[in-house]
């Protein structure tokens, strides 16, 4: 099953307007359930069958033409000979010319039938492999799904699982499998004692999509394990970040203390294309305000995408799910939906998620109604080009304002109350609660991921297993 992700403008905070030339690629997410036969090899099978049938049809028509022509030719010769009909019948009987012609045709048709049979067998044999593969694949998927559901059937109460996670962390730490100590994690990530949710304030760089992604990720109960197994603070104050997180062969990104400092803005007092008459008045580009580890994550996300901690490049905007995917790799599965549509004048419109068609609305509802912080990490983007010069618009039925063309993080979802708690990267300490309806009317897109818990846990388990 596929869900289309329409192209739309990136979210970029209030500092970097979207670049029309850098519109997002049109991505499609393959959800579990597809077969193993690719369109390419399906095409191969179809072409082979068509080719064989076509050749047989040509040969059959040639034989038919030959038989028709042959009979006609014989009759013409007989007429030209101008012999009495009795003699002709006599000669026909002796030479058996028509019978021989018919025998020839019958033999040819017999050969065609055999040929068709052989080709069918061959095709069946050829097709068997993909069918087998598909069956195996379906079986595997079914088994995976069954295993997943079993894992979801929790027998042990949540607090006991939480206690176990703390014990697991101690165990991993004792084995030297965490690159970061608990005390380092508490010092460099947690905003308050025992509170993991990141307290972040986006500064003057238009990287709301990165900040929102980091904040959303910090809501995950796996955040500590992910950070402690994939990040390390070195004695000189620099950091090593392994991305994708928790992958044994991940790329190591080093972030120096200098890269965490504000940068000189090369665009200072210059105008950017399509940005209006005002020049860029930002002398320096400041990193997100928050704990050091969170600033490292912001810098690592920028470096991963642009090759260096180029805050000006990050200013161009992007999507929260792309940031999560670039950091989480295969452990995360993209999950997004957008209401952006291209109108007749070739301009993007953002009618809001409430305008989604039935299929995409079902997709969104499914995500919200089944939101599980264990497996879901989500950001959402507001509408572009609304709110007038100030760039703010009101949430329908609530005394709340949203910034246009901006990414927000989703901190939690209350399925019973049908509310979504979102946070603005400008200040994540002030969550905004919206009903599902308000959220759908106010937001243009959901950019989220689902943790592939099988892969994530397996990666973690492998680490444990190695020293078991």
């Amino acid at each position, binding site marked *: 099953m596929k869900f289309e992700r329409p192209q739309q403008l990136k979210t970029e905070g209030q500092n970097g307007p979207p670049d029309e030339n850098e519109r997002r690629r049109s991505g499609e997410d393959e959800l579990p359930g597809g077969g193993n036969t690719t369109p390419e090899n399906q095409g191969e099978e179809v072409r082979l069958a068509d080719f064989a049938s076509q050749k047989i049809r040509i040969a059959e028509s040639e034989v038919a033409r030959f038989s028709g022509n042959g009979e006609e030719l014989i009759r013409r010769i007989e007429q030209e000979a101008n012999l009495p009909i009795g003699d002709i019948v006599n000669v026909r009987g002796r030479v058996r010319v028509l019978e021989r012609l018919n025998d020839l045709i019958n033999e040819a048709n017999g050969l065609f039938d055999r040929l068709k049979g052989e080709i069918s067998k061959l095709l069946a044999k050829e097709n068997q492999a993909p069918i087998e593969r598909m069956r195996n694949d379906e079986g595997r998927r079914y088994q995976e799904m069954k295993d997943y559901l079993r894992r979801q059937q929790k027998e042990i109460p949540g607090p*006991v699982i939480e206690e176990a996670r703390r*014990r*697991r962390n101690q165990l991993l730490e004792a084995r030297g499998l965490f690159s970061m100590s608990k005390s380092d994690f508490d010092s460099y990530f947690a905003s308050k004692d025992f509170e993991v949710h990141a307290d972040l304030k986006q500064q003057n760089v238009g990287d709301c999509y990165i900040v929102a992604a980091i904040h959303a990720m910090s809501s995950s109960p*796996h955040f500590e394990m992910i950070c402690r197994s994939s990040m390390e603070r070195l004695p000189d104050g620099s950091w090593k970040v392994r991305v994708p997180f928790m992958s044994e062969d991940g790329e190591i990104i080093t972030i120096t203390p200098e890269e965490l400092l504000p940068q000189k803005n090369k665009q200072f007092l210059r105008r950017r294309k399509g940005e209006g008459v005002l020049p860029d008045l930002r002398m320096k580009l400041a990193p997100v305000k928050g704990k050091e580890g969170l600033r490292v994550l912001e810098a690592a996300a920028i470096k991963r995408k642009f090759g260096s901690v180029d805050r000006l490049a990050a200013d161009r905007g992007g999507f929260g799910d792309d940031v999560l995917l670039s950091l989480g790799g295969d452990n995360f599965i993209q999950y997004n939906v957008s209401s952006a549509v291209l109108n007749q004048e070739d301009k993007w419109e953002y009618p809001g998620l409430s305008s989604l068609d039935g299929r995409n609305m079902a997709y969104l509802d499914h995500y919200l109604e089944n939101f599980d912080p264990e497996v879901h990490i989500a950001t959402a983007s507001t509408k572009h080009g609304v709110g007038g010069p100030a760039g703010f618009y009101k949430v329908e039925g609530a005394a709340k304002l949203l910034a246009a063309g901006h990414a927000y993080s989703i901190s939690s979802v209350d399925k019973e109350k049908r509310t979504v708690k979102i946070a603005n990267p400008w200040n994540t300490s002030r969550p905004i609660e919206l009903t599902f309806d308000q959220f759908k009317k106010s937001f243009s897109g959901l950019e989220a991921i689902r943790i592939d818990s099988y892969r994530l846990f*397996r990666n973690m388990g492998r680490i444990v297993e190695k020293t078991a």
Partner: protein
Amino acid sequence: MTQDNKKIDPRELARSFELQIKQAVAKKFSTSVDDLTLLRDEDAAYLSQEEPDSLCCFVVGQKSGFLYLVIGKIGKDGKSLSDLKSDVVS
């Protein structure tokens, strides 16, 4: 705790019920007992602070790579284990 905690060695208790502990995981997650390893680290078996009179221990699936938690009620004698339950921790 109703038992005399001083007398209970969680690791020792887990080790003596290793087969039953693995069977609890194998039954729920359709895996083979041979594929499971009971962790023997100091922190891998402990008395739960959240659930009274309960032993918790970790089991790793060699093929799946999952880390399972198994919890069981400790008998009054401190030497028996019953009502084993398991879930994936990570």
